[in-house]
């Protein structure tokens, strides 16, 4: 079973201008994320990479087609079940780290596990271990405002991995970082995903980063074309 499977996904948006009808972003896209493999989607700005990732994570709904997460169709779930699925099976990393500003680094990382109803002591233990692995052992009690961009992104990576999800969805995770920090975060993310046996769906325009992944797809003309690798399990 694939952690995430996109089946005949089409996504259309209403045009901003009146009378222009709808704009098609994705047309009949199929994609299976393979367990334990990393998959990158590259493409020009505005090609629909982020939209594809949002649909894959159940954040947005497709106009046509369906998204299966561990075999379960997102569209068949109510808010509670969909949230639960996202909480337990998917980790998100975005260009903007999207940390809770009032929570310190440790609390931000613990948050998904606390939401899942896990014991605080267990959550703390795992969160501290993740933060220490990413070199943030001294920053546990720092608020996001007290962390650098690279540190914030590392906290976001820890948070994404906290609940040991099958798949990590990452949208330009190094897009806001300088070159050194970007390279460090890229390596950390790929190493952690491999060490923990997770799948990764990466959306980026950074080709170097993308081609470090097992599979690379190009999103062009509303659909995906394989650039590297291929589905193997």
């Amino acid at each position: 079973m694939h952690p995430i499977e996109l089946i005949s996904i089409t996504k259309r948006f209403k045009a901003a201008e009146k009378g222009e009808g709808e704009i098609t972003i994705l047309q009949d896209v199929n994609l299976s994320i393979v367990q334990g493999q990393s998959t990158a989607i590259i493409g020009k700005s505005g090609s629909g990479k982020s939209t594809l990732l949002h649909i894959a994570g159940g954040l947005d709904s497709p106009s046509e087609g369906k998204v299966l997460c561990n075999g379960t169709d997102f569209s068949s779930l109510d808010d509670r079940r969909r949230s639960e699925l996202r909480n337990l099976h998917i980790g998100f990393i975005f260009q903007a780290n999207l940390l809770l500003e009032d929570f310190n680094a440790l609390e931000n990382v613990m948050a998904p596990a606390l939401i899942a109803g896990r014991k605080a002591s267990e959550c703390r233990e795992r969160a501290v271990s993740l933060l220490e692995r990413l070199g943030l052992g001294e920053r546990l009690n720092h608020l996001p405002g007290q962390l650098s961009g690279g540190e914030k992104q590392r906290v976001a990576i820890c948070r994404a991995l906290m609940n040991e999800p099958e798949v990590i969805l990452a949208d330009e995770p190094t897009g806001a970082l300088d070159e050194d920090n970007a390279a460090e975060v890229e390596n950390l993310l790929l190493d952690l995903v491999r060490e923990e046996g997770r799948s990764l769906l990466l959306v980026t325009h950074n080709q170097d980063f993308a081609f470090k992944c097992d599979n690379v797809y190009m999103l062009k003309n509303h659909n995906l074309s394989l650039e590297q690798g291929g589905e193997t399990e």
Partner: protein
Amino acid sequence: MNRFVSLWSRKRILKRGRLTSCLVLIALVMAPLVTALIFSDSMMEGITSKYIYLSDGHVQIGAPFAGSDISDFDPNDYPGMIYSVDEVTSGYALMYSATETSSVMLKGVGEGYFNELRMDQISFEHSTVEATTAIKGIAISRATAKALDVGLGDRVALMIVPDDPDKVLRPVIMRIDSIFHSGYDQLDELLAFVDLDYAKTLYSSQASTNLEVLVTSEYMEKLDPLVELIEETEHGLDVTTWNQHNVSVYENFITSKQMIFIILLLVVVVAAFYTASVAQQMIQDDISDIAIVKLIGSSDSLVKRSAFISVYTVTVVGMLIGIVLGIIIGLNLGPILTALSNMGIQSLSFYLLDFDITIPWLSILVISACLLLISYLSIQVSLMKTRRITPIRLFTSL
């Protein structure tokens, strides 16, 4: 409770100035409300006590018809129910000093009338000069003495309003032996006390003399069943309670009490709706955090629960602080009112300034319950908006 919900709620409460101001506002609304309740209830109970102990008794027994006689009433027939029974003759009189006139109800009372319960309600200042003439003594109130511009030992003329239409108006001269003060000028200025036997010579009609009954504390709240029992036992006697005897005063009290309560309730309703607007504003401020929390897997109900706990905790804590503050102020109303009165606030002279404080727990409970219920409902309605906040908003409208 989910640990994340409690963590998020705690952070909101501690870090949001808006929630702190909500807490302060609720406390500032509740404190005067509770004080006002304590003031109105205590004062009305105080005034009621003045009427009962100095004017009418808990129960009055009269013999308005020929053939009936109040001396037939025996308190021993009602064991444990009756504290004291006093024969009282009363009638109206106009009182004159050298320059002023006042209208009073002259009450003729026996020696034992001012028992311990009544003395708790009144204080006397007696003349130290021994009477040298046969002129009868009278006790008038401080308010009447002030109105007539007289003092202890002075003489006043009374025009007795006859209780029998065949009699004519009769003037008598009396000496002011005592000046009393109950703390409630409105009642004081109506009353004057004379010796019972002398009063009987002034008001000889059978209807002018009746019995004032004070009941034991156990029966103070059971006057109606006691009246029924006396009426069944004592045929031909007229039995009334103090509130039947003072219908307008009693109804004024009830109406005032209800109006005050309704007004306070309306204030509470406004405060409760304010909490809903705080919840709404908090949601508005937290759109980004809510979307992030939903992104990492929180359901909408978890988000609502956390927001509700934040606002409701602040409401409950603000309410409790307000109640405690209100009770503290209420318990010190005596000195506060006296200080205000001494500052020359004239309107306070219409109120009873010296009264026992009673805390109206039931009214406080009803007002608190109303605040909590309306807050609960209005906050829940406000929080329905969180459903529209989805993680995708992080990437679109934010």
